[in-house]
């Protein structure tokens, strides 16, 4: 079997044990490749556990710039976890490589004749590092591995050294230890494994000014830029790091330089019900408040979503989706809360949802969500997922237009009340179905009203009159029509050639989809595409579907939730749709999409021929 040779186009997978301190060395590896100007896509696959269970860190090196997962296999596996050895060996492409700790000889372990062994005595090398305790040596093993991998892949040592120096700034002893460990691995590989690995990272200029950032971090920052002052949350993977990022960015940007007081308030609530209650209370009182949660939290918050929808109180909710139902797969990714969020709460409800494709859009939509929530006086859900939220993604730099003003929506001021401006809390004055509100304590004698989740008339007085109720419910529907013109429009991209086939996708599927489309095109399969960015759907969605005989809908859930939402909301014929569903908890891959669509196209072509 010919060993795989590849330059800037391969996948490295690190198989680790949770809690062994591999994460930072892994990330260094990915960043070092980026600094060589070569795009990478990295995915962290981890268990719901603190210590002991298997984790994988997959780095796809792609000179061509593909940023989705390629598939389930890797070209080089770094096997640090005896527990998953067999599975890891199985996942190597034929002709690929296995880097392992050769301190003890391999005796009973599974091996494959078509896989090339790269043995590095990691344990015995780590024992050569003077003045360290066992725990430190364990950590440094990851760095020795990094050094060896760097040599094998022809990476530049000084780039990694610079990254280490950055990471441990001010801790000279640690920097020295890490340098030493890296050098040990590097030298061993140079002396003993020269020429054995034909995978290579070559300096390029393909990264540009792009940044490498996690979606939760970007969204937390977006909330700071978007003017959020109140954050109430309850810990849950994979959303916790969003609240933590908001906290960290607030500490940097929102502490008054003179008084040292905080221009923000963050409360770790007792549960998700309280978290959304606080968000609603804060927004009712004119502050921009949000919560970050995941499926189980969204389930708990249902009653409050109905209140905010019906009483027309703004709220921003980040749903970092994970594998459901129930506790499901808490550390795996899915797009499976779509219907839950779209129709959250009892009674007739519909909510505004945003679907960012990557951390950059997560930043933008985070800020945008506060404008939309206040403009529309309703909850807005930013539908992210674990894949975007907790992985570093290579994306365009974040930007902000300094002339941008927050859209605080329709708020009647004390001056306007004083001047005799009409105020009827639930009247549709402007014909866009969005009513005006007043904030508490606006005016001593005018503009106060009673907010409630029970039926009321247009003047906010309690009413069980059918006509009053229907008026409000109809207005809420019309308000959603107004929302269609305000939410981010879908992005349409037409194939090079005319085609009767379309594909719809959204969120974290984007990079895998981009690649799948390019591959399909090479095989003569042309698809026009529409990337959804929000619900409610505008006319563009209806037009797109109706313009194609068949439309693939690529989703990361079992039940084709987005497709159902389109069928339901746009009165579209379900027969037009073909679902491509990936929901095993791992991020969707380009290969999966390509194969699924190619297979279906074969069938459809055949059907057409018959």
């Amino acid at each position: 079997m010919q060993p795989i040779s590849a330059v800037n186009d391969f996948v490295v997978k690190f198989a680790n044990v949770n809690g062994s301190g591999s994460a930072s060395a892994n990330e260094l590896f990915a960043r070092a490749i980026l600094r060589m100007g070569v795009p990478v896509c990295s995915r962290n696959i981890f268990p719901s556990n603190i210590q002991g269970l298997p984790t994988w860190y997959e780095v796809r090196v792609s000179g061509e710039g593909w940023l989705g997962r390629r598939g389930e296999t890797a070209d080089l596996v770094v096997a640090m976890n005896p527990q998953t050895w067999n599975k890891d060996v199985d996942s190597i492409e034929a002709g690929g490589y296995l880097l392992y700790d050769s301190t003890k000889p391999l005796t009973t372990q599974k091996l494959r004749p078509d896989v090339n062994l790269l043995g590095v005595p990691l344990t015995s090398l780590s024992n050569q590092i003077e003045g360290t305790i066992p725990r430190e040596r364990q950590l440094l093993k990851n760095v020795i591995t990094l050094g060896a991998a760097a040599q094998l892949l022809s990476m530049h040592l000084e780039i990694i050294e610079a990254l280490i120096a950055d990471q441990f700034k001010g801790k000279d002893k640690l920097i020295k230890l890490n340098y030493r460990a890296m050098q040990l691995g590097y030298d061993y590989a140079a002396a003993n494994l020269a020429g054995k690995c034909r995978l290579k990272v070559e300096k390029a200029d393909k990264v540009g000014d792009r940044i490498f950032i996690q979606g939760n971090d970007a969204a937390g920052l977006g909330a700071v830029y978007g003017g959020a002052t109140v954050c109430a949350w309850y810990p849950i993977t994979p959303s916790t790091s969003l609240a933590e990022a908001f906290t960290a960015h607030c500490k940097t940007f929102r502490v008054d330089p003179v008084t040292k007081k905080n221009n923000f308030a963050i409360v770790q609530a007792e549960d998700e019900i309280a978290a959304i209650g606080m968000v609603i209370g804060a927004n009712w009182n004119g502050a921009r408040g949000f919560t970050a949660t995941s499926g189980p939290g969204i389930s708990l918050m249902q009653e409050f979503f109905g209140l905010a929808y019906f009483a027309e109180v703004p709220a921003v909710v980040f749903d970092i989706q994970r594998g459901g139902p129930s506790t499901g797969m808490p550390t795996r990714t899915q797009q499976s809360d779509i219907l839950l969020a779209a129709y959250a709460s009892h009674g007739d409800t519909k909510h505004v949802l945003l679907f960012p494709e990557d951390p950059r859009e997560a930043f933008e939509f985070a800020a945008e969500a506060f404008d939309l929530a206040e403009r529309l006086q309703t909850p807005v859900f930013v539908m992210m997922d674990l894949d975007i939220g907790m992985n570093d993604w290579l994306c365009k730099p974040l930007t902000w237009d300094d002339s941008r003003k927050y859209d605080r929506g329709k708020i009647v001021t004390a001056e306007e009340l004083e001047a005799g401006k009409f105020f009827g809390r639930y009247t549709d004055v402007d014909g866009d179905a969005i009513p005006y509100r007043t904030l508490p304590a606006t005016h001593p004698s005018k503009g106060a009203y009673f907010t409630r989740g029970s039926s009321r008339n247009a003047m906010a007085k309690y009413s069980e009159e059918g006509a009053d109720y229907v008026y409000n419910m109809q207005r809420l529907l019309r308000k959603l029509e107004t929302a269609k013109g305000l939410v981010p429009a879908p992005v349409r991209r037409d194939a090079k050639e005319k085609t009767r086939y379309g594909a719809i996708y959204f969120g974290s599927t984007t990079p895998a989809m981009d690649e799948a489309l390019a591959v399909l095109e090479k095989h003569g399969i042309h698809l026009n595409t529409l990337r959804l960015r929000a619900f409610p759907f505008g006319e563009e969605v209806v037009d797109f579907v109706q313009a194609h005989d068949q439309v693939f809908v690529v989703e990361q859930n079992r039940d084709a939730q987005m497709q159902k939402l389109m069928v339901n909301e746009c009165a579209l014929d379900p027969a037009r749709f073909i679902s491509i569903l990936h929901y095993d908890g791992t991020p969707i891959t380009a290969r999966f999409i390509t194969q699924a669509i190619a297979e279906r196209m074969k069938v459809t072509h055949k059907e057409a021929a018959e």
Partner: protein
Amino acid sequence: MTYIAKPKLHHPGLKPNKLGFTHRDYEGSISTLCAGCGHDSISAALIQAAYELDLEPYRVAKMSGIGCSSKTPDYFLGNAHGFNSVHGRMPSVLTGANLANRDLIYLGVSGDGDSASIGLGQFAHCVRRGVNMVYICENNGVYGLTKGQFSATADKGSRSKTAVNSDNPIDLVSLALVLGATFVARSFSGDKKQLVPLLKAAIAHQGSAVLDVISPCVQFNNNPQSTKSYDFVREHNEAVNRLDFIEGRSPITADYEPGTVQVVQQHDGSFLKLSKLHADYDPTDRAGAMAYLQARHAAGEVVTGLLYLEEQADDLHAGLNTTATPLNKLTERELCPGSAKLAALNDEYR
């Protein structure tokens, strides 16, 4: 429930207070509760307290959950914004509102089902956070609005019209003490003389003030075997003190017989003059208060009065180190770091 519109509350007169407001300015919509419901008396006491304190009604945010009791914020301070939220969750909504604007007066009105059953968790957590508010539980031992089921504050062995309660009661006052409330009182809707000054002191208090007000439900729980009936509370009411709320910062000069009066001062400068009815009851001793309550409850008494006060209380915002300006008044200038900072930050992600 009665659907006959009742006349506006009867006032002692329409004498304006310092702000020029009369009682009428502190009223709200006409109550739709049953004639004789304790909750209406509490609304009347609140109106009286706000009037006597010369409060600007619109500076108050009235928050509630769901229940007959939770409807009442509609019936007082009509010029204040109100929020009738969801069952048992008023504390979180109030907390959020308070985070947004620390300058308003937050009145949380709840029932015993709302606070001690479905909302026990939220009650506990907003008290332990020290949210600056007046939290009133209008306690009738039953769910009024859903027609008379026992709530978690019903005493063991207490009877309603149709059932006997066999579960142990939750005492919100004891809980509030354990949870660190800085103002804890119990009163009775039928004792306006006691209730009004307690409400005034609670409103002046700069921290978590919890008032458990026994408020008989004439419809479902005012029968002779109920421990939340008018008669039972009147007969077993053991007030530990009588409170006089004194505004302003002038120290109290009058002489009192030793041991009969205790004067305490609150953070805002207001003085509370407590006429002691129980010589050795000290309302600044949290542990003592807890022990006393336990003992008297065992003896079948309903202890009322100002049960605990932390004179120099702090609130949630102190812990959060929030800026003095209400968060809802901050603008892009304070909130948005701008493009230059973002450009610099991008570098950290390369």
